[in-house]
């Protein structure tokens, strides 16, 4: 089994990018943002990809891009397809909206709410998208972005408990193993 026939059929209808075949039953395609909705509808209604497995983002900060991954599953064909949508990172941070797909899969609203909170990607039409999901009262930049430094935040926010000290593992083990300093 291969994803090539499906890819060729999709390519004839939609201007899509290259195919990355990860396994015979799993492939990723980069798609232009304006083609996403049509492609999702086609895959869902015509090709049997009825199950939205996940929707998540990857922060490619060096290339100034956010990647949105829409992973769809076709149970009869036992295959998965991942659609990658690249968003300009700076524009997203400044508030450029992304289209919601909650009307295609109601569960997408939860994913979009999480993406809004964790990456700051806005889906303005998605129900409840601006409500706090996990982080109540968060004031910093969205924490799953690569430029959010967890260690710095932790050091600035939490005080170390008195009576504890950190050891360098290598030095500590050396002192344990060779107490005479040999």
């Amino acid at each position, binding site marked *: 089994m291969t994803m090539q026939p499906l890819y060729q059929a999709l390519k004839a209808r939609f201007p899509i990018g290259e195919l*990355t075949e*990860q*396994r015979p*039953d*799993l492939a*990723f395609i980069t798609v232009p943002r304006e083609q996403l909705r049509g492609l999702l509808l086609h895959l869902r209604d015509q090709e049997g990809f*009825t*199950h*939205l*497995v*996940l929707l*998540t983002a*990857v*922060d490619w900060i060096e290339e100034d891009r956010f990647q949105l*991954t829409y*992973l769809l599953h076709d*149970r009869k064909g*036992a295959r*998965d397809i*991942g659609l990658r949508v690249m968003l300009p990172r700076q524009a997203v941070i400044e508030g450029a909206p992304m289209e919601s797909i909650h009307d295609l*899969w*109601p*569960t997408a*609203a*939860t994913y979009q709410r999480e993406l809004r909170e964790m990456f700051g990607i806005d889906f303005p039409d998605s129900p409840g998208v601006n409500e*706090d*999901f*996990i*982080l*109540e009262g968060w004031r910093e930049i969205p*924490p*799953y972005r*690569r430029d*959010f430094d*967890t*260690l710095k935040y932790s050091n600035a926010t939490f005080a170390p408990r008195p009576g504890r000290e950190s050891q360098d593992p290598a030095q500590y083990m050396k002192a344990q193993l060779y107490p005479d300093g040999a």
Partner: protein
Amino acid sequence: MAYQADRSQYPSRRPDGSLDIDLSSGKYLKLWQGPQHPGITGNMSVELTVCGDEVVEGKTHVGYLHRGFEKLMERRTFIQCFPIVCRICVPEPDFNEYCYAAAVEELAGLEVPERAHWIRTLILEMGRINSYLMYLGGQAGALGQGVIGQWTTYVRDLMLDRFEELSGARIYHMFIMPGGVRDGLPDGFEQRMEETLREIESTLADVKDVMFNNAVFKKRTVGLGYIDPAIVDQYGVTGPTARAAGVAKDVRRDQPYLVYPELDFEPVVGQDSDVFTRADVRRRDLLMSVDLIRQILARMPRSGAVMAPLPNVLHWKIPFGETYIRGECSRGEYGYYLVTDGSGYPRRVNVRGPSYTHAMALLERLIVNCNIADVAALMVSLHTYPPEIER
């Protein structure tokens, strides 16, 4: 004449579809179910708006268990991630280990020895039994039958003993690591496992009599929390919850992994799609796992390597790539989406737990018009573990 509910007290809808609930009218009350454990749903809460004793709206709130696993992993090497992942799901941690290990192996091009596949399958089925036993106790407990939880906890403890002699740990086993598994089976393991399985079967026969043939349990669960098979895909419903609706979704059969192609089994399917059927599907699925463990122990290779040679794990860099690995856990489809960028750290790890869809969109839909007293039974029947929602 058919019963007609009095809808005059119910809220009307605003143009955007949301309910127009005026709390100052005195008709409605806000009630919080959780975040303490109501049954075994873990630390999540549902904000209920009730009218009389009937729920008109429910909103799931999570975040009580957020530890930022996905972000933590971006700062850790691939081998350092391995002891973290199991903490994402306490009652059934092994799926995290398997999905993470399989994703790393695929992207790093590691070949796992045959014997390790058998041991992995064994561990996943043992974990499934543990998870189901905990569920059965919780489901009965949510309806006031405390004794079932005591029985299932006893046999679950026996299974934890088997885990302890296999891996040295009862809860977080950390046994399935990238490259294979940590060790083979100890001497006499098969014999002791057989004794445990017999004890589980005997307890389940009692559970069937006391729980499933109980008039109160039937009366309260038959017809409660109906899930239309038509919305199974729309709401991302998987696992026993989907199978109870007559949709034979089972990753072990649909996209077989590990040694499932070599095992003889058929997915357990129900029809009525209510709380009773979901409980019954899980009970039968548990018995199927008992059978699968017997098949595995009878057929697995007794010798051979259990670990592939790993590169120096302190300097282990994995080429650029992305993949998704799924498995059928006791609650549905569990999956890991792993993205690597050629460095020694994952670029992104995304955990797809079945509770993410079941406890949010699906529960909020099912809970409407439910009686307050039935909410706990409904929540438990979706078998959700909140840590996998908030990772």
